[in-house]
């Protein structure tokens, strides 16, 4: 039986796909057979972030509608043999997804994989609610910014009421907070919500803090999950997050502003 994890946020552009790609690669690197599914039907992007956009033949909707089998649609990652990608359809709309259809595909994948990562689309429409429906765990991706925190709070409410686990009265989805695009310098200047503030408002277990970092854009430009950029703070922070998910107890890093010298403060901008 695979563990199903949804990466969700409500708000768009906060880093769900970046996180899904990094998280899936991190699990695969630790030897777990992992598949990452793009639920953003009509606006697929996971294939681009994973760097396999030219190898898409069949997609998630093709599998649900029986036009292809799962094996035909899965794309094997070129860097890691444990990692597979199931791309979303670019031409259909979200109505092509059904509870039964998604359930059937997840069942089939569950027999072969240890972890299934569901990359949710933004919003609270069908794609997003189906991405979370079968989840065992949820990573709630949040920027330290008012609209993102508000949307995350809304998502947490939906997670606890509209999932299979809620409907069948099972234990609830385990929810984790991942704060992304965190800038300790701006927090220190009083321009950005501090980590403690975000945690206090959302009251979730913190699984990681990803610092604002140029390597995220560099990695997506190149189609490489940022976790593979081992020099970068963001890559290391994602690596810590994967370790924490697997039960390691690691302190959070990159939370303090780097000290600038006097000259740096005067001219550094």
């Amino acid at each position, binding site marked *: 039986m695979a563990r199903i994890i949804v990466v969700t946020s409500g708000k768009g552009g906060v880093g769900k796909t970046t996180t899904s790609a990094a998280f899936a690669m991190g699990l695969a690197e630790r030897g777990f057979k992992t598949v990452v599914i793009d639920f953003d039907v009509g606006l697929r992007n996971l294939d681009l972030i994973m760097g396999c956009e030219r190898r898409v033949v069949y997609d998630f909707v093709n599998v649900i509608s029986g036009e292809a089998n799962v094996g035909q649609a899965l794309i094997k990652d070129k860097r890691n043999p444990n990692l597979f990608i199931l791309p979303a359809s670019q031409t259909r709309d979200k109505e092509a997804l059904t509870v039964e259809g998604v359930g059937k595909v997840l069942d089939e994948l569950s027999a072969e994989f240890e972890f299934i990562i569901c990359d949710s689309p933004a919003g609270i429409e069908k794609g997003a609610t189906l991405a979370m429906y079968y989840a065992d765990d949820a990573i709630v991706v949040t920027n330290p*910014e*008012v609209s993102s*925190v*508000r949307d995350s*709070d*809304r998502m947490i*409410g939906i997670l*606890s*009421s509209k999932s299979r686990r809620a409907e069948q*009265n099972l234990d*609830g989805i385990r929810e984790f907070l991942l704060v992304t695009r965190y800038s300790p310098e701006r*927090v220190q*200047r*009083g*321009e*950005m*919500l*501090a980590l403690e*503030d975000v945690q206090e*408002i959302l009251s979730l277990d913190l699984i990681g803090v990803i610092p604002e970092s140029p390597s995220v854009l560099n990695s997506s430009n190149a189609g490489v999950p940022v976790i593979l950029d081992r020099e970068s703070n963001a890559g290391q922070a994602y690596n810590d997050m994967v370790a924490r998910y697997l039960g390691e107890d690691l302190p959070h890093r990159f939370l303090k502003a780097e000290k600038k010298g006097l000259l740096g*403060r*005067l*001219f*550094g*901008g």
Partner: protein
Amino acid sequence: MALLDYFRQRKSNSASIAKERLQILVAHDRRVGGPSYLPQLERDLLKVIRKYVAVDNDAVSVSVEHDGRQEILELNIVLPD
């Protein structure tokens, strides 16, 4: 410009404004998500309390919190000094 920012930075603290706004907003959003009888319950409670104490219009607030599988009905009444 960096020099100017350095002297200016102590004044601006938009983060605390953000936190304050969010706390109010999130509490409100969570109430909206609750059962539909909450506003009426609030009005009725206000009426009953007013039989005994003169309280403000916004003295009573009712909210539902979700804690795992439990729902907690939280009732807050602010009495005048």
